[in-house]
């Protein structure tokens, strides 16, 4: 198990390094002169030179990369050109929106999807299965930002239950925080439901596959009723494909937050990177990209470790 962990950590670290090379290459090497991109065509030679100096563009590329990556390692993401604040501070501020949003959405989608998937698998071929899976099939097809618009139309414009967008910020009092949470409800639902539809389908088909395995028959031959076998023997085996999809989904969820934050005008990381792109603030773009990519890699690492916890066969280092 320790060898397995060490190996997975090493692989995760290598992936992270490779990703950082890609980000650095695309944003700093490919454009030739990032300073010109940031300032646009009409910049004066003096401002250009000043920014070049500040970004250290006069130094050789490998040195710049090393400098950048060492900075990242100690949490120094550089200074934003447009916000006149460190990228780290910007990220920390915006995480207060994006992190709760992602966590609520992920929890919501898991809590809906797995019971629904198991339920449908247990009633395979019956009306309940057909109806839930039909609904899931539709859910998979709905783009989350369109779903968000529909939610806004019904719950914000129509029923006026929640705000249509914006974020009041977390506050001191419970009432403030409730207002902030309310602003996250629709975005979280818009993110979670399409994901839940995918996950429910995966859960159902994984359960159906597992229910056909020989060891399920062995368990039935011990005298355990169908439902008990479903929960005690099938679910844990079915979790492996489900986890795989959850790992992949997390990446889509992060990407989804970028869109959803823009739909609801939420000041999160997604909105930050989006605006940074429009303002060509490459330093912010780099920092946020690395954070997103690192999170995805970390989640995949966590998924791998969960595999090993669920399935003893995967604990051997391979």
């Amino acid at each position, binding site marked *: 198990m320790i060898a397995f962990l060490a190996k997975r950590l090493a*692989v995760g670290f*290598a*992936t992270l390094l*490779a*990703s950082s090379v*890609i*980000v650095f290459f*695309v*944003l700093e090497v*490919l*454009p030739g002169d990032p300073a010109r*991109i940031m300032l646009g065509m009409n910049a004066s030679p003096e401002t250009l030179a000043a920014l070049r100096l500040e970004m250290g563009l006069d130094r050789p590329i490998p040195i710049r990369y090393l400098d950048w990556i060492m900075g990242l390692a100690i949490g120094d993401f550089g200074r934003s050109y447009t916000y006149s604040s460190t990228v780290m501070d910007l990220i920390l501020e915006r995480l207060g929106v994006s992190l709760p949003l992602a966590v609520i959405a992920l929890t919501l989608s898991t809590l809906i999807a797995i019971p629904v998937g198991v339920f449908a698998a247990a009633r395979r*071929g019956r009306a309940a299965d057909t109806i839930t899976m039909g609904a899931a*099939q*539709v859910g*998979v*097809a*709905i*783009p*989350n*930002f*369109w779903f968000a*618009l*529909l939610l*806004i*139309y019904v719950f914000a*414009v129509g029923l006026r239950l929640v705000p249509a967008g914006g974020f009041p910020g977390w506050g001191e009092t419970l009432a403030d925080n409730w207002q902030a949470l309310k602003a996250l409800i629709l975005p979280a639902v818009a993110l979670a439901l399409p994901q839940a539809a995918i996950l429910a389908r995966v859960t159902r088909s994984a359960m*159906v*596959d597992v229910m*056909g395995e*020989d060891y399920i*028959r062995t368990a039935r031959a011990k005298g355990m009723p169908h439902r008990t076998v479903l929960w005690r023997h099938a679910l844990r085996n079915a979790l492996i494909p489900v986890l795989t999809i959850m790992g*992949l989904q997390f*990446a*889509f969820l*992060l*990407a*989804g937050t*970028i*869109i959803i934050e*823009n*739909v609801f005008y939420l000041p999160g990381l997604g909105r930050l*990177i*989006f605006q*940074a*792109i429009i303002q*060509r603030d*490459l330093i912010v*773009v780099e920092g946020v*990209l690395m954070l*997103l*990519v690192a999170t*995805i*890699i970390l989640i*995949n690492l966590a998924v791998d470790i969960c595999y090993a916890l669920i399935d003893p066969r995967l604990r051997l280092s391979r």
Partner: protein
Amino acid sequence: MSLDPVFVPTPKRNFFLRALHNRSFLIGLIVTGSIALMALVSFFWVPYDITRLEVANRMQGISLSHPFGTDHMGRDILSMIMVGSRNSIAVAIVAVGLGMGLGVPLGTWAAARGGLPDDLLMRFNDVIFAFPALISALMITAIFGPGAVNAIIAIGIFNVPVFARIARAGALALWPREFILAARACGKGRLVITIEHILPNIASLLLVQGTIQFALGILAEAGLSYLGLGAQPPMPSWGRMLFDAQTRIALAPHLALFPGLAIAITVLGLNLLGDGLRDLLDPRLRHTR
């Protein structure tokens, strides 16, 4: 167990018969076929010219002359959706083509070689998987500015590891099979075996995944153009139409309704088609549904 599986492989004649009885496949085929037809028709005929702006006619509701209404510039929404479908379909086709074209050779090659090339490919996949289409699109746009080509590249790149994985897994399951050993005992090389034996046997796997990725491509393109990172105006795109509709949702909700429905129906059709194909092509699953 020796519950002799009633194994009924797929005689070709039967395929069409069974296809006619597969609801998912039929509905999926009809829906996708209609969308494709709509895109084709839009090259020759649309109800209204979408390049002409008639501000006087803006944001009209549903009527006989404009079945889906008009947008904030007075353009006919039905016509916009018809022309917009080209963009969605083109981006998705190229992105899936890119993913298959690079991913399948990579995956089958890794499976045939094993060892270091295989390890490297898997690590490479891990890296690409850390860049979902939207994130690489953001990265590319930061440097080159927005455009449909960027969207294609971003979506296509993410498809490469998807197909590489599927092809590799399918090929790895086939290599130890006895018919491959027999082919090797006939002195056939890895390339010949991959072409003659591996590819035909993973084709159905790839086809099913292709329809799924196609659907995901349509969704991703819509997301990108919603953010303004995809096709640029005046080229209409479904995602962009939704963006334009958003600020006017209280006044004219139908602006948001039809483009969204177009996306959802297309994706639904493709997913149904994929499900149906899976049932039809994979004999293992036939009796489990």
